[in-house]
């Protein structure tokens, strides 16, 4: 493997990411299943990096799940997206920061559609105006929140308390980067580093001291697939795709998987539990499963935040093995306590804990 080769590819896929003044749109899945991640993103941006990030309480789901399940038509979802742009315009923002990769895919797809089919844009303006009386502008900068973390990865590294290094051996931890399909596979130019060798997550891991694992099924989908997942009878397809990825990465003995897509995070996390329940297969070392982290969670960990404040206990696969390797101090007793110290019920069947 030649690193220069990858650098040459990355050089072809440089992306402009705004520096400040973001209009933030949330992810349905993330705010439900990994609320700590979005919470930490806002905290990091506003409190640590001192950036201006606006979150408008009137924004809605992008309806991507409905769109990809053939429930929401294209014309409708274009109006929904246009409404977000209108909210942004009304608040005086020009840079959009999107938390979800599905949404990011929807936004880029729609923007490209408008670019190539101006009549569609006119139609959307008309639709939105008729429905809501609002008007919108095309945003000047569209970034996924992982792009923004990537942009500030070195600042984060400077503030880091821990590095992605095994405390006992001193060797870098091996991280698998998993990019959501809709991040760059549709429009490689909109992703940091392109679609084949994306840089967005590998850049973070390397900045924070870890080592990238390049395994054969690196490009493969996590197995989410809306239609595959939403219908129970089809979930075998979803599960099998995830299994295929894990089988492929297993020999590389990764210490963690870093994802930038809500679906990937959820499915790589929860399907590991399912497969273990089905036939006892685990993909990590020593009978453990592989922790699946969002980029905010990983950033928070290296910066020394309390894992429980980052919401890591809400995963199916627990991250304690990673904490131990990194030397992170954590209190197991606090894991299921509320902010004011009350004990919550402890979930059963958690793995790795």
């Amino acid at each position: 493997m030649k690193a220069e080769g990858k650098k040459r590819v990355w050089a072809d896929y440089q992306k402009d990411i705004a520096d400040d003044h973001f209009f933030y749109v949330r992810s349905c899945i993330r705010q439900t299943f990994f609320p700590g991640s979005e919470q930490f993103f806002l905290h990091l941006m506003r409190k640590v990096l001192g950036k201006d990030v606006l979150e408008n309480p009137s924004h809605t789901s992008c309806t991507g799940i409905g769109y990809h399940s053939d429930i929401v038509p294209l014309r409708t979802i274009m109006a929904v997206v246009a409404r977000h742009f209108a909210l942004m315009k009304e608040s005086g923002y020009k840079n959009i920061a999107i938390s979800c990769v599905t949404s990011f895919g929807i936004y880029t797809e729609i923007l490209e559609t408008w670019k190539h089919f101006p009549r569609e844009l006119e139609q959307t303006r008309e639709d939105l105006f008729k429905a809501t009386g609002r008007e919108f502008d095309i945003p000047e900068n569209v970034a996924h929140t992982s792009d923004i973390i990537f942009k500030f990865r070195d600042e984060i590294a400077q503030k880091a308390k821990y590095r992605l290094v095994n405390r006992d051996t001193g060797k870098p931890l091996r991280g698998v980067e998993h990019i959501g399909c809709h991040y760059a596979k549709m429009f490689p130019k909109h992703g940091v580093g392109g679609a084949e060798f994306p840089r967005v997550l590998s850049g973070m891991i390397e900045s924070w001291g870890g080592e990238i694992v390049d395994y054969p099924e690196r490009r493969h989908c996590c197995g989410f697939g809306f239609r595959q997942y939403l219908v129970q009878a089809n979930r075998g397809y979803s599960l099998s795709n995830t299994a295929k990825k894990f089988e492929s990465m297993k020999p590389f003995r990764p210490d963690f998987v870093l994802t930038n897509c809500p679906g990937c995070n959820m499915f790589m996390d929860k399907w590991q539990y399912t497969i273990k329940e089905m036939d006892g297969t685990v993909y990590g070392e020593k009978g453990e499963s592989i922790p699946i982290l969002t980029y905010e969670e990983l950033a928070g960990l290296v910066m020394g935040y309390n894992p429980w404040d980052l919401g890591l206990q809400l995963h199916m696969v627990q991250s304690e093995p990673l904490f131990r390797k990194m030397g992170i101090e954590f209190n197991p007793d606090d894991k299921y306590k509320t902010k004011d110290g009350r004990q919550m019920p402890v979930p059963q069947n958690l793995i790795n804990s």
Partner: protein
Amino acid sequence: MEKFGFTLLKARFIDYDANDRSIAEFIYSKEPSFRVCIECGCCAATCTTGKYTRFSLRELNILMKRGENSLVRNKIRECMLCGKCTLVCPRGVNTRNVIALAREAYRKEQDNAV
């Protein structure tokens, strides 16, 4: 085991390295013309058996070459050896012998397993 209502599916891809390609090797060694097939499908188009059932020598050839024997093992017995395929083959593949050898090889394989 938990009842999830779905299961892990067997991968559909041909795992070339893991497959047993000894049947094809056996045919290559006995009938070298097996190598020059270009998968034109002439044989399948004229096939006497193909009139009655889904039988494509072209398809079976490629499956044997890839070591996907489970599909071929019984299917190959449906050939009537009438020889039309040999007559129409543009590459002069001795298709009848290919089939006869394949049957022999699968029979031997079975005998050894028993």
